[in-house]
């Protein structure tokens, strides 16, 4: 299950599992971001390629509008998925 908490100032917290079953819902929520944004992954326990796809789409959409996207507080195993996918060189991970 995935919980998505949209906070003021373009901050979103994802909690739980961002898998293929949750990707569409996450995509719909992240479409509400329209300025510089931060996605806090402190409580994200799992991500698959479907979840990575949603985050990359969000990054590209914001970038094309002149805005930044930062992903913060990744657990080591979550970060390793980004690295294996080669996305640590594309996305800003902090």
């Amino acid at each position, binding site marked *: 299950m995935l919980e998505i908490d949209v906070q003021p100032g373009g901050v979103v917290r994802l909690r739980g599992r961002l*898998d*293929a*079953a949750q990707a569409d819902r996450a995509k719909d929520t992240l479409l509400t971001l329209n300025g510089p944004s931060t996605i806090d992954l402190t409580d994200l326990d*799992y991500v698959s*390629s*479907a979840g990575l796809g949603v985050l990359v789409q969000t990054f590209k959409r914001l970038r094309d509008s002149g805005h930044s996207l930062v992903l913060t507080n990744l657990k080591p*195993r979550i970060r390793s998925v980004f690295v*294996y996918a080669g996305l640590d060189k594309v996305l800003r991970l902090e």
Partner: protein
Amino acid sequence: MVERRFPRNLGSLEPMVRFVADYVRHKGFDAEHSFTVDLLVEEIFTNMLRHAKGGGPDVSVGLEGDVPELVLTLRDYDVDSFDPTAAPPAGAPGGEGVGLRLVRRISDSIRYEYRERSAIITLTKRFPL
């Protein structure tokens, strides 16, 4: 080997996670290893949903092995042959997607078989002791 059938749709991901967690715990693997096995299961399963032509109502997931090596088998019934392991490298036309790239990076081996209209993917993963 323990094997279980799941409906051929994304709603099966959650019960698949429970199936993997039960096996990992029962066999004495580190609970953290469920993360890796879940990822392998999801990437192969969603690849089957996306690319296999035909397909019966179910897909089966099989788990076998003891610490440190786990063998994972996914079987898609009544489908045309589609070998994801034959995809060109990422970046080439028609090349492998991110999901298959992750599977190649994470697993120790991947094998595709096609028998009696079933597509069978077998993965091995050796976890560090």
